[in-house]
């Protein structure tokens, strides 16, 4: 089995190398005859032209840079294998991308107000961010949480908080995306419980939890237990949701954070898809039919500032996913081959200097996402480099998407850059580089081993350090930071989370703990522990029971800490 898969990646890599090694005689002749005399020996003025993935770029690309049968073999038509041009036949003519703005801060009341505000302004999907204590499975009354309540998202310590967040919102009419990973099963259970209280059948609940734990170890570093334990809990959620929640996308395989951690575009592409392949193998090992759960896996990419590289990355991602799922994992249904993804514009490229420039950056990145064929989009607010976005800044970000959608004509034609020599060449090149990583990861014993050894983390840290040095040396430019700098800039006004949020959360938690039936809590947690200790027991129903008994996030997480232990990362630098 191992040998089989090894040969799959190596043989694919070999074939791609063969396919992409072109002899461009026309280009060489042009260079000699026309370009070099024009430049007079000074070809680049000392600048290097290289993208984030370290790929050197030529002055111009020609038909010779792409394989002859590109259109038939590598592209196909929209909605047709290998889906390079888009997953749906009608793309944005059928339905625009979902404008999904990430929100969530302060108290559940604050978030509830912000969600209602966005719904009023035409947002079509809810998206919730949680604060650090919640992401790490700590309650607001843990001493470690002091000063962190509501700072980077909303605080949820118990079911009561979730009830407040969704107060007055009809859960059968919205889809909710929750950016939660380590405690994803607990938050899903809370959402189910809120739905139950509103008499909405669990089968009608629509939304997404991120639950991509591999990228936590690779990039975002928000974990509780060792990788194997988290993967097992995600497996339980996968099985439960496949059977009970047809509209719930239980894993959003995320490259976004890999990129924000400083990776290149190709590292984002390769590591994200490698994570995806692991979840496919995990589902198969849990006895699920790949055609039953593959359509429920969705992706989440970053759209950064190198315009064409981002577009090529998204196109390559679709092709790789479809190809590998069909060839390696034996997928039969077309629906299972579709790589559908959410995009968020890059936070890494935003600057606190001259913050209004960020609107321009976000616009370009948003355009790249649309040209890359995204299914939903979050555009960052211009003040996000500094703090949680203010209401005005969020509105401009949403308007940016609406302008791209309504005024520019960009969405009118599907994959308008398809056939561009440069974009096709770059798509092929990124694809090849991704397979190089797949092969390397396989040689390290698979993604889990590579992550535990810190290999992917080291690759990202090396890329991010290299970029920093290039910025310091002026080889790479950020306007307002290392070029076109303005002296004596005033700090922009930002949204501050008051200490009141912390106080209010603490009070509510205290109230929850005094109101609940303690015996039921202990019983539920005991049952959960027993379930966790049995590898083949599905923990999901037990988590739901604990949540409904108002056991807190930390109490439930602590059961896992007791059973599985906690995790300390490998040495990366």
């Amino acid at each position, binding site marked *: 089995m191992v040998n089989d898969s090894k040969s799959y990646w190596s043989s694919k890599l070999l074939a791609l190398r063969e396919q992409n090694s072109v002899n461009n005689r026309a280009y060489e002749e042009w260079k000699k005859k026309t370009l070099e005399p024009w430049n007079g020996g000074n070809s680049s003025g000392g600048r290097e032209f290289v993208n984030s993935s370290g790929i050197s770029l030529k002055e111009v690309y020609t038909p010779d840079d792409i394989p002859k049968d590109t259109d038939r073999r590598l592209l196909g038509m929209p909605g047709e294998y290998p889906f390079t041009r888009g997953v749906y036949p009608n793309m944005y003519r059928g339905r625009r991308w979902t404008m999904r703005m990430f929100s969530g801060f302060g108290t559940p009341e604050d978030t509830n107000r912000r969600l209602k505000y966005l719904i009023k302004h035409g947002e079509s999907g809810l998206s919730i961010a949680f604060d650090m204590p919640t992401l790490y499975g700590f309650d607001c009354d843990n001493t470690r949480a002091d000063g962190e309540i509501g700072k980077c998202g909303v605080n949820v310590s118990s079911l009561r908080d979730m009830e407040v967040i969704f107060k007055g919102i009809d859960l059968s009419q919205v889809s909710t995306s929750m950016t939660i990973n380590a405690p994803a099963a607990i938050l899903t259970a809370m959402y189910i419980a809120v739905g139950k209280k509103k008499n909405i059948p669990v089968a009608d609940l629509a939304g997404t939890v991120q639950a991509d734990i591999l990228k936590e170890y690779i990039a975002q570093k928000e974990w509780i237990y060792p990788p194997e334990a988290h993967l097992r809990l995600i497996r339980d959620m996968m099985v439960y949701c496949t059977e009970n929640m047809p509209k719930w996308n239980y894993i959003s395989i995320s490259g976004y954070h890999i990129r924000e951690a400083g990776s290149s575009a190709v590292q984002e592409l390769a590591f994200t898809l490698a994570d995806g392949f692991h979840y496919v193998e995990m589902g198969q090992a849990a006895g699920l039919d790949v055609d039953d759960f593959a359509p429920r896996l969705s992706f989440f990419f970053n759209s950064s500032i190198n315009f064409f590289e981002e577009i090529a990355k998204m196109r390559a991602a679709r092709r790789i996913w479809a190809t590998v799922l069909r060839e390696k994992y034996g997928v039969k249904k077309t629906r299972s081959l579709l790589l559908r993804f959410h995009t968020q514009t890059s936070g890494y490229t935003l600057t606190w200097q001259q913050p209004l420039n960020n609107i321009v950056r976000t616009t370009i990145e948003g355009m790249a996402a649309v040209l890359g064929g995204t299914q939903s989009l979050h555009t960052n607010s211009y003040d996000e480099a500094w703090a949680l976005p203010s209401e005005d800044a969020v509105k401009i970000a949403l308007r940016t998407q609406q302008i791209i959608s309504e005024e520019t004509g960009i969405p009118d034609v599907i994959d308008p850059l398809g056939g561009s020599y440069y974009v096709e060449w770059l798509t092929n090149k990124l694809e090849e580089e991704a397979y190089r990583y797949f092969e390397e990861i396989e040689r390290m014993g698979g993604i889990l081993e590579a992550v535990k050894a810190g290999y992917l983390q080291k690759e990202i840290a090396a890329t991010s350090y290299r970029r920093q040095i290039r910025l310091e040396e002026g080889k790479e430019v950020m306007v307002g930071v290392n070029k076109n700098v303005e002296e004596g800039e005033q700090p922009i006004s930002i949204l501050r989370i008051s200490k009141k949020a912390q106080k209010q959360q603490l009070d509510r938690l205290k109230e929850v703990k005094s109101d609940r039936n303690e015996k039921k809590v202990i019983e539920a947690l005991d049952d959960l522990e027993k379930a966790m200790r049995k590898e083949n027991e599905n923990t999901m129903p037990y988590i739901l029971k604990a949540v409904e008994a108002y056991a807190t996030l930390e109490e439930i997480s602590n059961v896992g800490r007791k059973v599985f232990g906690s995790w300390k*990362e*490998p040495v990366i630098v």
Partner: protein
Amino acid sequence: MKVLKIEEIVQGILDGNRRAVSRGISVVENDYDTAAARRIIREIFPHTGHAQIVGITGPPGIGKSTMIGNLSATLSKKGFRISVVAIDASSPFSGGSLLGNRIRMQESLSKYGVYMRSLANRGLNGGLSRSVWDTVKILDASGSDYIIVETVGAGQADLDIVNLADTVIVVLGPGLGDEIQAIKAGIMEIGHVFVINKMDRQGAFIAMKDIEETLAMSPKGEWKPPVIGVNSLNGEGYEAFIEKIQEHRSFVKSHSDLTMRKFRTELQRTILEELRRRFESDISHFLSDNEEIKQLVRDKIDPYSAAEKLVKKIA
């Protein structure tokens, strides 16, 4: 508390005060050839000799740090005072270094109050850092029962650990493949206890048998190095591991010639160092005398004869 004076550092070390221990180590590390450093060592030396110095070596990535974390936790639970010294390589280009060994030990450090100090080898060949000799003396005098020294883990360069440690642990693991053959070359002679880490992994048992076989072929000394398998995930094998460390301790204690040999080796390196230090300025003075060098070149004097001449002059 104000800034520590030398006499306070000495007294603090003997009292087991951590700040004094830490500052004392900095003094011997940064100012090893000053009167202050000499004084510290001179005054604490009579109080050394209690601790067992356990050197841990093995290839990078084999899980030495996690293993030391477990080992020190297990020993702490038995009531022993543990200190850990971890040595990392300095960058040959900048002289700086990244000391990341604490990451995998943090839990044992905070939970059991294990003392840990990271040292960069500061470009010294041999893998150990110059100051490690004095560092273990300070930790010994401060009341440690065990001082665990983790080496850089770079093959041949690590062999020096045998001169420092009472007991040398060689850590190996499954999946080293051909690498293991190369590592074995130097390392098999210095190990007193061999540990196979990651016994939960495939190939661990084979690695264990492989080491046992190689040891069986090596010349028989009085101490027969045992091979122990441990699993750092669940703590399996650590009791047996500790037993072997303690057995070797008794073995060393009952062989006073070993203590003599260790002292002789350290004395030798100290004398050489002292000579080098003392004559360094004479030598560089001689080398900077252009006229003299010119004359040597003109007369076609070979380097050996020239050196002999200089040494005679200094003596």
